[in-house]
């Protein structure tokens, strides 16, 4: 019975296409995460340098750091959305 269902499913999803779109989704998300990963690293690293140099303005630096992370992260999240949309 389960075998029947899985064969039907396999036929329905049309193996080749589904596989390709899964590969595309995975690759797309992986590629989309590279830039923001580097970007967030730069943002946080510089924010820490700023905080270490001027501990009295750490509050402002932290707020701005979170803003920068949020903006950079948006790119990765768009990649994630594409990933979700492409999943079979």
């Amino acid at each position, binding site marked *: *019975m389960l075998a*029947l*269902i899985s064969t*039907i*499913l396999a*036929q*329905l*999803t049309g193996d080749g296409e589904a596989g390709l779109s899964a590969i595309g989704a995975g690759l797309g998300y992986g590629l989309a995460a590279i830039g923001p990963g580097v970007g967030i690293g730069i943002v946080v690293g510089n924010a820490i340098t700023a905080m270490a140099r001027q501990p009295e303005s750490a509050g402002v630096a932290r707020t701005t750091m979170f803003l920068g992370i949020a903006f950079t992260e948006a790119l990765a999240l768009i990649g994630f*959305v594409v990933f*979700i*949309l492409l999943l079979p």
Partner: protein
Amino acid sequence: MSKRLWAAAAVVVAAVALSASAASAAETVGSCILDEIAAAEFEGIEGDGFTAAKNLKTAYEAKVEGAEELKKDFEKDLEGCLEAPNPIIPEVTEIIWGGAAFIVLLALMKWKLFPVVKNLMEQRTQRIQDAIDDADRQRAEAAEVKANYEAELADAKAEAARIVDEAREQAGAVRADLQARAEADIAEMRERAAADVEASKRQAIADLQSEVSDIALGAAEAVLGRSLEDPEMQRQLVDDYIASVGAGQD
């Protein structure tokens, strides 16, 4: 936290948990496909449900006419089970519930709940500020009182010193005065005494002179016996004599 709040939270949690179990019992892709197959019926194919599906498969493999069409229709039905709504597309009912919840919350917060808490915080801030101000004021007052007291103390000390000085001065003046007066008295007494002595001396001399002259006169009278009739001449004689004696003595 109040009991009523706990009760409300418990009701909410129970409701959500119930809905979770209801959802977990919901249809999955597999059960959907099973239901679909169980209800399968095909024109020209024998049986219904799983038998019909099996017969359709054999018919399709045997390339029976019309079987391909039937299979395609069946596949479309089954695909319906896979077609879940895209997760990025919002659901209207959820927007309505969520939006209503947020608007109700915003209204409640803006006009009822938030001002109370904020006022509470501001009152406390004000209270603490007042207390600090009050303490500052009291400290300033105390400092002022202390300064006044110290100034008064210094005044009093100066006054005391002044009084002592004055007294000392006065005492000095009095002493000088007394001393001067005493010296003056003494000098006066001494002068008077000296004058007295002088006067007494002079008196004594005078007395003595007259006495001596009387005695000498008497003695001479006694000796001469009334030889010198004229007393006035006698006296003159004696005085001259005494004067010559006195001059000789000096």
